[in-house]
């Protein structure tokens, strides 16, 4: 019995107990959301309304933040910028006699522009540096809002005329305000849910986990993050407009405040960062707690409430690092069923009987030169790959093989020279970015495996499959198919971080294969896997070649090089020292010298 069938038998069995769960979860969710609206209406008290309006406001803001901070993993502590822009746009326009319903969208538009201008240069920054940059931008916005008092009213702030009614979004009673903010919160949740369950969400998470691997899979990482930050900023601005109408009075210190920014992020963190409903849970839990704590402790002593709040935050972070969602999952959810950890072998794939003939040149490396500081890493490297051919790139460590790969896939730009690829229509083009290379059908793997650790195996492969399919269902189908072909079937629902090194190497190839590339660049996919698997991997590569894919492989396993490749290029110290049929190349004295040193050559001679 092959593993493929074992997996297909095991899969439905594993899914069965889970089948009832989604529906139960959905009912719980609907009830929960309904309660947020119905509780204040049922109690009918103004203060309770206020608490729930605040809950909806922060749940919405936090959900919007989570699109950037959670899905895309960009820790923004400057989201109050967008909220503030929305607030100011709403009030400035209202004072000009324009309804905040219009001001809301005007504010969102301005916020999107601001978000793109701020984020674009900052995307190179990681983690804490991105956070510090967003704080700096926030401070700049606050000072500018103070300075340009003609527009913003400066430090004294802006007020709205107390014009009541739906048109002006200002009400004496609280119910309409709750209706509006509740609706906005639902929009925010829907946006987050939609993104997370569509291609964009997969791309964002992939970008967060491994930017380079995402690029190699054809993800335009900058574009997807700009989309995320735009959606997030627009939503925050709309909440800003609403809150300004609710406050009826705004000032720079309150609107562009670091405290608010941190709070927004904090709700997401406490609830469960990167999950769709975590921020909602966080706000529902934390807002009433802090309101009640303020009431109980605030009167006792100056600072007691803040002290307790701070301590609680530290404790929550220490003992629930995955937030409330994580804690709930641990309590209610069943542990992931243990799958066999023993690596299944690569599935034997029936070979096509006829190998297509080697065709014309499909990729040309033209005088590639690259320096790192004083080091000449590749020196005038030129070669070409023909259609349907397997070309092996070998050489001692530090010869510049991976650098050549990086130039062949757009991750590095050569100092001089270039790479040409023939597109599907038969014309030679010169792609420059990893995205261009992916788009034209060049797929690559990485020597050091680059899994999207927080995603399941299936989702990992789906990121590759999305290159061909827009729809999640199609991509999932393609990913499953690829996974079974690659012998990863049994692990479809396991998180990638749990795989063995052999499994990760296979996952690396599976993700690329799901893209169905025309040219495949494989960087040491056989390093560290056992003898049987090497044999099977060789078969697999041959079958890939037989479907018409052209392959360049960096490989140290000579067994594979000898049996696979049509042609071998030997690189040493950044230069091509030999090229030819595998049998010829291994006998070449220069090659032996490069690998084993001069003495060895002499001894043989």
């Amino acid at each position, binding site marked *: 019995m092959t593993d493929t069938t074992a997996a297909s038998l095991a899969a439905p069995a594993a899914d069965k107990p889970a089948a009832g769960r989604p529906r139960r979860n959905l009912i719980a969710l609907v009830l929960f959301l309904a309660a947020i609206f119905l509780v204040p209406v049922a109690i009918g008290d103004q203060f309770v309304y206020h608490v729930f309006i605040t809950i909806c406001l922060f749940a919405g803001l936090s959900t919007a933040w989570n699109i950037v901070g959670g899905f895309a993993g960009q*820790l923004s502590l400057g989201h109050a910028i967008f909220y503030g822009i929305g607030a100011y746009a709403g009030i400035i326009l209202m004072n000009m006699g324009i309804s905040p319903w219009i001001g809301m969208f005007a504010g969102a538009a301005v916020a999107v522009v601001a978000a793109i201008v701020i984020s674009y240069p900052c995307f190179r*920054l*990681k983690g804490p540096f991105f956070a510090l940059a967003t704080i*700096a931008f926030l401070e*700049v916005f606050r000072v500018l809002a103070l*300075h340009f008092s003609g527009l913003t009213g400066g430090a004294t702030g802006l007020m709205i005329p107390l014009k009541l009614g739906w048109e002006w979004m200002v009400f004496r009673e609280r119910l309409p305000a709750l209706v509006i903010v509740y609706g906005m919160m639902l929009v925010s949740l829907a946006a987050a849910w939609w993104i997370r369950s569509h291609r964009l969400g997969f791309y964002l998470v992939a970008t967060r986990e491994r930017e*380079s691997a995402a690029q190699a899979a054809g993800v335009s990482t900058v574009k997807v993050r700009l989309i995320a930050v735009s959606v997030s900023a627009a939503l925050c601005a709309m909440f800003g407009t609403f809150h300004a109408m609710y406050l009826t009075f705004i000032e720079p210190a309150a609107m562009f405040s670091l405290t608010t920014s941190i709070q927004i*992020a904090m709700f997401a963190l406490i609830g469960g960062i990167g999950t769709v409903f975590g921020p909602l849970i966080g706000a529902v839990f934390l807002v009433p707690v802090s309101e009640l704590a303020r009431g109980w402790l605030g009167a006792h002593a100056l*600072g007691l409430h803040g002290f307790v709040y701070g301590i609680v935050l*530290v404790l929550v972070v220490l003992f629930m690092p995955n937030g409330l969602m994580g804690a709930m999952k641990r309590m209610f959810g069943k542990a992931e069923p243990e799958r066999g950890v023993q690596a299944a072998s690569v599935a034997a794939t029936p070979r096509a009987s006829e190998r297509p003939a080697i065709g014309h040149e499909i990729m040309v490396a033209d005088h590639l030169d690259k320096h790192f500081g004083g080091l000449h890493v590749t020196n005038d490297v030129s070669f070409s790959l023909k259609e349907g051919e397997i070309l092996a790139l070998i050489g001692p460590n530090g010869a510049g093989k991976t650098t050549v790969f990086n130039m062949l896939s757009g991750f590095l730009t050569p100092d001089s020279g270039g790479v040409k690829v023939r597109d599907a229509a038969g014309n030679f083009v010169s792609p420059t970015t990893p995205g261009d290379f992916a788009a034209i059908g060049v797929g690559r793997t990485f020597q050091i495996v680059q899994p999207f650790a927080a995603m399941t195996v299936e989702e990992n492969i789906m990121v590759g499959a999305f290159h061909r399919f827009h729809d999640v269902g199609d991509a999932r189908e393609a990913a499953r198919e690829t996974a079974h072909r690659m012998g990863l079937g049994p692990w479809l629902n396991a998180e990638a971080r749990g795989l063995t090194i052999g499994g990760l190497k296979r996952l690396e190839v599976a993700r690329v294969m799901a893209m169905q590339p025309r040219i495949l660049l494989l960087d040491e996919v056989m390093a560290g896997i056992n003898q049987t698997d090497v044999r099977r991997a060789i078969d697999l590569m041959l079958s890939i070649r037989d479907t018409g894919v052209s392959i360049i492989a960096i490989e140290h396993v000579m067994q594979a090089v000898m049996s696979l490749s049509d042609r071998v290029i030997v690189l040493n110290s950044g230069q091509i020292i030999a090229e030819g049929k595998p049998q010829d190349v291994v006998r070449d004295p220069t090659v032996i010298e490069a690998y084993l040193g001069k003495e060895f050559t002499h001894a043989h001679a």
Partner: protein
Amino acid sequence: METFLQVLANGLMLGALFAIVSIGLTLIFGIVKVVNFAHGEFLMIGMYLTFVVTGWLGIHPLYTIVIVAPLLFLAGAATQRFIIQPLMSARDDHIQIFATVGLSTALINLALLIFGADIANTPSGGLRTPVEIGPVRVLSGQLFILIAAIALVIGLRLFLQKTQTGRAIRAVAQNRAAAQLMGINVNRIYVLTFGIGAACVGLAATLIAPLYPTSPNIGTYFVLTAFVVVVLGGLGSIGGAFVGAMVIGLIDSFSGFYIGSDLREVAVFGVFLLILILKPSGLFGKSLNLSHVSP
């Protein structure tokens, strides 16, 4: 010309102030790689300690360093051991940032609880005496800060280069995994480094307390600037932080005089953003790869 020199002198003195506050953060941010938002609150604690100890023992504020610095060392080490270390393995570094935000909130409010919102005045102990150097005037206490900052930079560099522990710290900073393989107890080194960073802040506090009124919020005035300085100087580069602090001090002083006091923050943060975007390794960073370029 005289005014120009005075603005220059003011900028340098301000730079020295930023430097002495930031050097400890360089160790914490540069080596433990933790964005410690409670850094300013360590300074605040140190200043209150200086205030209290000076009052109790009736000694010159500078002598309190023998008490304040060790206490701050303990505070820093405890923070690393009990708050940061358990989170080191966390999925992403967001979590540590929020832990320190929580710590910062708790500490500010603790000070409010104990000392009230009023300012506390440490006796100046003669450190507010104006000193004339040619055409410019500065305070003796400010000169002290400058000298102490330079001494601290030299001392820490010697410590990091010449001692076994210092070399271990550098090894951990460069490559955590490799250091671990070499038999270095990485967690111990982190606790130690965080402690030393906090102790440096303690030293800063004893020098600053006689010159500035202490209040629960004093730390928030410094913390963002300190981060600016550390990033500007290049992560983990102590000499870089010193020069970075001087640059920020001068920008602050000159923009305050020639552009306007209300816009000097824009100037400081503007320069910070430019450096961050154009040269993320800082002015003196040794091509530390902060951006994520290729595998």
